[in-house]
């Protein structure tokens, strides 16, 4: 039975009838053709293309990794010379960290969070589109320069003074610094979207105590992005200024300091890995809950663990600098913090195991990937605790031990949950299930491949093999383990191929999914698969943390949003009372145009300061298009307000 919640002082129109449903569909229907494609502001459209673009960057980063492993498979190999190798490993790191890992988590959040909280779009749809276009153009910018032999060649970290004006010739490092600017704009936009959407647009009844764990994870991650990204932006802008404008931020002879760059970078760099990790933890929670067929055990503890991880994550950065001249007392502080951060994640793993124990597990592919996550991530987490100790880090820093650690935590902690999430949510996005058989092949090949590739690297590091070396001599004795590692990389490639085939094959041939094939509890499973453009006909009212499992037959809803214009319900932050109806913008060219202008400004800026000057003025044009008030909409609102004031007895 539908419940209408009256909100004063507004008066709501009557409940939705079938013609209204048709109007609703027409209002939210996406535009057709190329025009519709570039002007889209629907969060699902933007989210899907964000995911696809990030996967393309995963492919490119993977190809770079394959090239690196081929070069290192044998001693004194000549596949890649030193210059090319330096570019390839820098591109691998930059692509994976800036263009794949953070964007894919962001993208999945953009797609899923509005659905999970029962609303129709993100808070600022046009800004969302701008974020995507900026991200895409940043990636195109980087790869265009890479194709012209001008890709970054000093790692994804680009330490000064190697990357300073004296030692890094040409435009390579300027390209890197600008890429950081592109991706940082995109990340900050997505973070703002996430925070505002979750704060103000949740369905009535979805208080913070009832928020799904995935939404918690995305929300906390967004807050982390807002604090962390400015640090790397500062560092990269200062680096660019040193290189192009003859400033002396990192020139010790003029009072600057090379170490300042490291502090700025790692103040971002460490939270960055938790920015990648936390959404993955949220995905694991959703999968474990659904496939155990009971809510995740210890919800308050799980939320506290996410908050604690996010918070402590900002206090670890100096552990990347233990080999520098940082004072011993402060090193001890960071050792303690780096050791302590294992506690919340450990407790989360215990709670997930408890959930499986207390539940009725169904061993489909998503849950397999969660098991893989525990098995792989723990190795990385434990090697991380080892690296937290200063004396041990003094031996292992900048060796393949660290390469092994970081890949175990990133692949185990982010990629395995991510693949689980793909198998879990693909039916919702596409409307068809992915193949279980291919999924199992994917899982096992990936699990074996990751271990064969990266486990030997622990030993290689302790044997003295340092990072970022393009070759090594036969006498070192590193040949056999490197060869094993390369064979593992081939197995990973096979696993990824299974995934790609599965993704593409299931679009046409996957089994029909229906609205809720897994019997899950979060709100996105309430609507059809794939969801209609407006997500929900009526906004559902949440009665319990258990979501869909708590409804006894009928779902209570809130009606009253207009169907002839795109509207969302804005609710209060703490008790999610409906506050007002907010009109969403129509599709527009403005985000794309503004992204192109920004891209032009940033790209030209590395060649001439006039690029920045001209760009700043040029941005005004799309800004005006964007911000110009909609006369038609304004006139209509005025008319309706007058009508309402003239007939006060319509209120019921």
């Amino acid at each position, binding site marked *: 039975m539908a419940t209408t919640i009256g909100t004063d002082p507004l008066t709501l129109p009557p409940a939705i009838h079938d013609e209204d449903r048709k109007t609703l569909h027409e209002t939210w229907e996406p535009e057709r053709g190329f025009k519709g494609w570039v002007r889209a502001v629907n969060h699902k459209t933007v989210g899907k293309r964000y995911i696809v673009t990030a996967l393309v960057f995963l492919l490119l980063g993977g190809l770079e990794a394959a090239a690196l492993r081929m070069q290192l498979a044998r001693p004194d190999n000549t596949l890649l010379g030193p210059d090319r190798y330096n570019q390839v490993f820098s591109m691998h790191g930059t692509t994976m960290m800036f263009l794949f890992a953070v964007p894919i988590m962001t993208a999945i959040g953009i797609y899923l969070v509005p659905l999970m909280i029962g609303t129709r779009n993100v808070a600022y749809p046009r800004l969302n589109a701008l974020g995507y276009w900026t991200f895409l153009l940043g990636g195109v910018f980087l790869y265009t320069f890479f194709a*012209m032999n001008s890709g970054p060649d000093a790692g994804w970290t680009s330490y000064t003074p190697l990357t*300073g004006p004296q*030692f890094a010739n040409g435009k390579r490092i300027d390209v890197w610094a600008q890429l950081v600017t592109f991706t940082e704009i995109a990340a900050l936009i997505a973070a703002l979207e996430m925070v505002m959407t979750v704060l103000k647009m949740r369905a009535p009844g979805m208080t913070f105590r009832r928020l799904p764990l995935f939404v918690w994870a995305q929300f906390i991650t967004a807050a982390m992005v807002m604090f962390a990204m400015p640090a790397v932006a500062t560092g990269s802008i200062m680096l660019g200024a040193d290189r192009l404008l003859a400033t002396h931020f990192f020139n010790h002879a003029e009072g600057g300091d090379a170490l300042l760059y490291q502090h700025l970078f790692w103040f971002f760099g460490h939270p960055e890995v938790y920015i990648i990790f936390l959404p993955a933890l949220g995905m694991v929670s959703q999968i474990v809950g659904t496939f155990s067929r009971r809510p995740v055990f210890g919800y308050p503890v799980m939320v506290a663990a996410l908050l604690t991880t996010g918070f402590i994550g900002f206090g670890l950065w100096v552990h990347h600098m233990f080999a520098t001249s940082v004072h011993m007392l402060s090193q001890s502080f960071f050792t303690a913090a780096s050791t302590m951060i294992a506690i919340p994640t450990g407790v989360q793993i215990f709670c997930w195991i408890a959930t499986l124990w207390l539940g009725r597990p169904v061993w489909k592919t998503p849950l397999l990937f969660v098991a893989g996550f525990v098995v792989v991530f723990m190795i990385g987490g434990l090697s991380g605790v080892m690296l937290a100790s200063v004396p041990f880090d003094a031996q292992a820093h900048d060796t393949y031990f660290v390469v092994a650690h970081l890949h175990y935590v990133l692949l185990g902690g982010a990629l395995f949950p991510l693949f689980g999430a793909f198998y879990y949510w693909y039916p919702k996005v596409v409307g068809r299930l992915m193949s279980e058989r291919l999924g199992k092949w994917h899982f096992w090949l990936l699990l074996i491949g990751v271990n064969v590739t990266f486990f030997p690297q622990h030993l290689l590091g302790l044997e003295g093999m340092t990072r970022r070396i393009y070759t090594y001599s036969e006498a070192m004795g590193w040949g056999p383990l490197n060869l094993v590692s390369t064979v593992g990389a081939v197995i990973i490639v096979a696993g990824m191929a299974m995934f790609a085939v599965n993704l593409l094959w299931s679009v046409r041939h996957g089994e029909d999914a229906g609205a809720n094939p897994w019997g899950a509890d979060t709100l996105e499973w309430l609507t059809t698969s794939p969801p209609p453009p407006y997500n929900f006909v009526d906004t559902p009212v949440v009665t319990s943390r258990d979501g869909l499992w708590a409804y006894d037959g009928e779902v209570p809803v809130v009606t009253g949003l207009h169907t002839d214009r795109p509207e969302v319900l804005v609710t209060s932050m703490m008790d999610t009372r409906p506050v007002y109806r907010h009109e969403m913008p129509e599709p527009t060219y403005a985000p794309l145009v503004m992204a192109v202008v920004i891209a032009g400004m940033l790209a030209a800026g590395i060649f001439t300061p006039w690029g920045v000057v001209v760009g700043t003025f040029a941005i005004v044009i799309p800004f005006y298009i964007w911000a110009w008030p909609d006369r038609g909409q304004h006139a209509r609102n005025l008319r309706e307000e007058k009508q309402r004031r003239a007939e006060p007895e319509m209120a019921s």
Partner: protein
Amino acid sequence: MSVRFMAISALPVALSLAGCKQENRDFREMPPAATPTEAIRVGELQPGGGPPFDSTVTKYADNAYAIGTGQRLYNQMNCVGCHFHGGGGIGPALMDEQWIYGSDPAQIFKTIVEGRPNGMPSFRNKLDNQQVWQLVAYVRSLSGLGGSTVSSAREDHMYLSPDLAIRSPEKPTRSAPRP
């Protein structure tokens, strides 16, 4: 969708075919003795016919790595001892528009290799040709004759006078030496 995808990916492919000379890193010339210095001429005038000589062509004019290497050599070979960081001292300034012996690449090449009266030493047989061309490219960039996108803004050392770092180099207006 796939057409748009191809359109987006065509750009990097096309550009890779175009290549970018600016960023090439040539570590050695093959072989070092192949470009004898006798072939370099400092002037275009010659009696009778004969192939025209283009003295403005230099292999590393637009190459960032070469200019960077030239900067390193400039410090290591103690050019700074007389010419300082372009401002001149015991030797003439290299950042201004006055070029006693000409600012063409071939002329600068000859200056370095042969030496000049009143104190410029000869580096013949001390530096190989590739290194001299790299120095030529760097020295020309000091007065803005190289591309601005290939030279670095500053070095990592102390600046004795603040304006040296931000001074605009003075391009020479004519290539022939002052009589």
